[in-house]
């Protein structure tokens, strides 16, 4: 940047003026004192001489007044104006230098789009001086005004807006910032052109890569979900296999009652007795229907369901009901302590599967005798479910492996070792946690906690 010319210092003016005044007043007093001293010895002065002397002394006094009130301010004004002009010239030079050295193009157009000024970079990009021509005729490949051109709106001084324009200067993409201004006393618009072609190209490549990666992740997740769905289904079918006789018992008992009542109706003449039998038949048919519905919902692949508000206590009861079907006797005491806990957003059958697997493990661990305690409660914003059995417990060296797929301590007919693996996979899927505490020969406690579902907009 060029040196800035320093303005004259104000103190210099004041100092010189004081000195001049002191000198002049001293000179006047000296002359007057000499005249007064020499009047007695001088021959009488002529009237003309006295008048000349007074005029001289008066001039000596008036001169500084004139000098300081008129001449000096005038001189100072001129100096200041020269200084201001110099500063302005330097600033203008600096601004011009700055604008011309900017790496992007600039122009100024009037409200009709006619170019009033072009920066050197702009001229270089265009390859010609285009003053007076419409900007879109010069810059746009199709010579059409941009659809969202800000010139179509009234110019507001100081207001800046940007548009992205494609097909500019040979197929390139520019971000054009329009700023309302006054130029040569008229409303105009400063256009600043940023070439963003490369940036857009890189962005497109990045977007493609992100989209491709997202697609890959989705496919990978879909494959994972599919395999997990198959595992869950296989586990379900295996469980159903082990429960087949239990299910048969649950259905055959009411079916037997139905058959007996139907036979009675066949052989009965008393219409009121027949009505009573018919009512019993209906009751037991409904019971069978409920059992079948319960199991058919369980057997259906979870992929056919959508996540929805799911009652944990309801799924606990259903899972318990299904496991109980497989019990040969009722010497396993079931204690339930279910608090009204929050619902979670999940596939209901998956949650049922979690509880089914854990309850079944607990009951199998008790070998026909013991206490199964099922507790549900809200704890620290989580829905907690605790399933505690008084069974054989898990040996310490096995505790770290129970979530491993195909790890089992059961016999060959009692499972494939996928139960707890599936439990953990499903619980983790819903951001839950499953922990297992166990003491050999005393029992096992499985604790599952799900985070509270975020309330929906509907509440």
């Amino acid at each position, binding site marked *: 940047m060029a040196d800035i010319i320093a303005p004259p210092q104000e103190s210099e003016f004041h100092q010189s003026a004081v000195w001049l005044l002191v000198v002049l007043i001293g000179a006047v007093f000296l002359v007057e004192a000499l005249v007064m001293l020499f009047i007695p010895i001088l021959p009488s002065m002529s009237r003309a001489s006295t008048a000349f002397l007074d005029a001289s002394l008066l001039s000596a006094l008036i001169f500084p007044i004139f000098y300081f009130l008129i001449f000096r301010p005038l001189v100072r004004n001129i100096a200041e104006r020269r200084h201001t002009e110099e500063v302005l010239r330097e600033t203008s030079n600096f601004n011009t230098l700055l604008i011309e050295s900017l790496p992007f193009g600039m122009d100024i157009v009037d409200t009709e789009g006619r170019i009033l000024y072009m920066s050197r970079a702009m001229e270089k990009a265009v390859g010609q001086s285009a003053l007076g021509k419409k900007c879109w005729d010069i810059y746009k490949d199709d010579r059409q005004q941009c659809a969202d051109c800000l010139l179509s709106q009234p110019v507001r001084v100081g207001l800046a807006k940007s548009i992205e324009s494609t097909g500019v200067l040979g197929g390139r993409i520019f971000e054009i910032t329009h700023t309302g201004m006054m130029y040569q006393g008229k409303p105009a618009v400063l256009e600043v052109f940023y070439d963003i072609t490369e940036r857009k190209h890189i962005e497109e490549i990045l977007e493609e890569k992100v989209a491709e990666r997202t697609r890959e992740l989705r496919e990978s997740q879909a494959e994972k979900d599919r395999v997990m769905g198959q595992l869950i289904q296989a586990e379900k079918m295996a469980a159903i296999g082990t429960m*087949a*006789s*239990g299910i*048969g*018992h*649950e*259905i*055959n*008992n*009411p*079916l*037997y*009652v*139905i*058959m*007996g*009542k139907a*036979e*009675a109706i066949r*052989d009965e003449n008393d219409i009121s007795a027949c009505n009573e039998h018919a009512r*019993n038949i209906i009751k*037991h048919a409904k019971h069978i229907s409920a059992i079948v519905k319960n199991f058919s919902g369980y057997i259906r692949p979870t992929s056919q369901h959508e996540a929805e508000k799911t009652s944990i206590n309801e799924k606990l009861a259903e899972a318990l009901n299904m496991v109980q079907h497989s*019990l*040969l*006797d*009722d*010497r396993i005491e079931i204690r339930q302590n279910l608090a009204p806990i929050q619902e979670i957003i999940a596939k209901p059958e998956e949650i049922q599967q979690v509880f089914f697997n854990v309850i079944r493990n607990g009951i199998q661990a008790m070998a026909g005798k013991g206490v199964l305690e099922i507790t549900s409660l809200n704890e620290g914003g989580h829905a907690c479910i605790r399933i505690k059995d008084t069974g054989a417990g898990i040996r310490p060296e096995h505790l770290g492996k129970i979530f491993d797929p195909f790890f089992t301590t059961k016999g060959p007919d009692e499972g494939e070792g996928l139960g707890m693996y599936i439990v953990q996979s499903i619980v983790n899927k819903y951001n839950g946690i499953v922990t297992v505490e166990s003491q050999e020969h005393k029992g096992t406690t499985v604790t599952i906690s799900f985070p509270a579902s975020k309330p929906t907009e509907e509440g």
Partner: protein
Amino acid sequence: MQHKILVVDDEAEVRNTIKLQLKGTDLEVVEAADGKKGIEKLDAENAITVDAILCDVRMPNINGIEAVAYFRREYPSIPVIVLTGYPDVKLAVDFMKEGVVEYLVKPVEKEKLVDVVTKAIRERSYVGGAGPKM
């Protein structure tokens, strides 16, 4: 001739159905709500004399497996018929090894039930008298 049948089943509806199916025959039903009560009925000092036992499998307190084992051990002359909802071949084989006359899976028709029970009582009468253990 009237015969007494001990029906051991924890479901009242099932016991009622058995009674209904045996109604009009010479088979009289004595009920017990589980294995324990069934054993008590036979073990009591003034024990009843039954000609056959119809026993369920899944029951509280003492289940069918234990109860049948007891009946067979303590009252070997009383024919035991298992009437259950469990269509389980292994269970059936185990019971047959235990010496039960028949393993019937519910639902069973009236005629079949009457036939099996009557046949069991008849065949038992060929080998020895009914009644408490000797």
